């Protein structure tokens, strides 16, 4: 191999090396340790109990009645939030696409929740919005003569979905608004001459144009929402019972509350498998949209 040829192949790899190698370490080391822990007896409260555990940790984690609930809650939380944010995101984006007085300020107000940290988001909603006695929502309900809802007790997972949707809706709106801006005006006008109704325009012009933007929103949200933690940690702590426990929170409970590292690691392996299943689905479904 010639000098220039070698260089032209080597340099791009050298540039990649730091990112790829650190990420590989960041992935492999914890993964290997997690898998290892999941096959040994490892409870921080009982250092005397050691040795191989075989599949016991997995059995223990799976047979834990909370496991099924946690998987279900994880997917429900993810699915609902993605659905809510994409649907409402599109509607709001269409609403504010054309100029109107104060649009810039509306944009700023709309995006603000995206910058609010999850812990504040959770506390704000739990106490000031959703408190059944003093909360703003309770006051609204009373105003209309309804009985205020005890959100955290009666709709724990629903409450968390609301909080997370509040945070991620702005993200979807902003991406969609940006995407709408590049919509071909002439195409729209041509369709009007062809007699297309607004609904037909939505179906045949807007939606196809937005496909890539929707893919991006779904992708990013999945990345961040598969492992929602802080919102649950500071509000419901997974309860009541397991009503708002997702996989991330269940593993946390095992590891740091029950000190059973072995079982927690087995749970983590499940979480990783679940993440990979979702990832494969996702890449199959929307990967094409992200190609050039």
């Amino acid at each position, binding site marked *: 191999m010639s000098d220039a040829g070698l260089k032209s192949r080597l340099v791009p790899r050298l*540039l*990649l090396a*730091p*990112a*790829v190698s*650190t*990420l590989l370490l*960041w992935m492999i*080391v*914890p993964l290997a*340790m*997690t898998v290892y822990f999941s096959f040994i007896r490892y409870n921080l409260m009982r250092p005397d109990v050691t040795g191989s555990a075989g599949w016991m940790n997995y059995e223990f984690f799976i047979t834990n009645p909370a496991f099924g609930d946690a998987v279900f809650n994880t997917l429900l939380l993810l699915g609902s939030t993605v659905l809510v944010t994409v649907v409402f995101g599109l509607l*709001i984006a269409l609403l504010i696409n054309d100029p*109107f007085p104060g*649009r810039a300020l*509306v944009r700023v*107000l709309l*995006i*603000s*929740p995206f*910058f*609010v*940290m*999850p*812990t*504040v988001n959770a*506390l*704000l909603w739990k*106490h000031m*919005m959703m408190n059944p*006695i*003093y909360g703003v929502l*309770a*006051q609204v309900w009373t105003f209309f003569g309804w009985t205020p809802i005890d959100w955290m007790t009666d709709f724990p997972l629903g409450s968390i979905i609301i909080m997370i949707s*509040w945070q991620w*809706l702005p993200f979807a709106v*902003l*991406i969609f608004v*940006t995407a709408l801006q590049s919509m071909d005006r002439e195409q*729209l006008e041509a369709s009007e001459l062809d007699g297309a109704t607004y609904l037909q325009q939505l179906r045949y012009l807007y939606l196809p144009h937005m496909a*890539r*933007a929707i*893919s991006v929103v779904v992708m*990013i949200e*999945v*990345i961040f929402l*598969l492992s929602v*933690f*802080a919102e649950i940690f500071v509000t419901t702590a997974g309860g009541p019972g397991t009503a708002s426990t997702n996989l991330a929170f269940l*593993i*946390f409970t095992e*590891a*740091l509350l029950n000190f059973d*590292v072995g079982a*927690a690691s087995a749970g*983590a392996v499940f*979480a*990783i498998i679940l*993440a990979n299943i979702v990832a494969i689905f996702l*890449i199959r479904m929307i990967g094409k949209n992200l190609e050039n």
Partner: protein
Amino acid sequence: MSFAQKSKSATVIRSSVAWLIALVMFFPILFLTVTAFKTELQAIAVPSVWFFEPTLENFTEVQERSDYLHYAWNSVLTSVMSTLLGLLIAIPAAFSFAFTPTRRTKDILMWMLSTKMMPAVGALVPIYVLSQKTGLLDTRFALIIIFTMMNLPIMVWMLYSAFKDIPHEIFEAARMDGAGLWEEFRHVLLPLGMGGIASTGLLCLVLAWNEAFWVLNLTSSQAGTLASLVASYSSPEGLFWAKLSAVSVLAIAPIVVFGWFSQKQLVQGLTFGAVK
């Protein structure tokens, strides 16, 4: 309906609805901010009071009781350092992906993103154990490294989609003009990729500032950031709304205001090339 055909009243209705939605979305933040200036009694009054003499008492108490500035400094330090470190690693990688793509480029990118889909909690125990063994538990150094790794896949991806839009031939022209790798970086990639780099940096700054999972699990008083300061006001003092609001406002104000000013820039990169 074309823009011209829309009647005046339709525009009025549309903008009113838009304003209503924006106000509803922003209301919780407004309410939080107002509450921060109330006394504890005013804070839980039903119906909520809107006209009162504002007090700064909550803010001074937060600073006195839990040293707000210490946590704020930790937040600034960890988010800024992790963003810079991340850019340092991600820019060369994205440059390489964008301008010398191979058959495996797309696969490596997807793999990078998939590491981001694995729940952090899957790595919690090992990282906890490793940090403990190396004495890095509750240090800012550990947080910086973790934030960097956590954001790296997103950074590479965002930068890649930004760099991809720079015409290849400009780099070739520079090469013909005698530019080496460093000059290409310095005179072509940096100026032309600045928009993408800025929005990537902005997003990572926001994500690191707001990160709670690793902060809650790996730090306590030493390296804790504002996310953990807020959490510490949650359970027992849960009903001291005014103080909770004050600490929350202090925690989110810097990043929200920062976000307002940079939102245009931020959003450009966030579309991941989905929008031309």
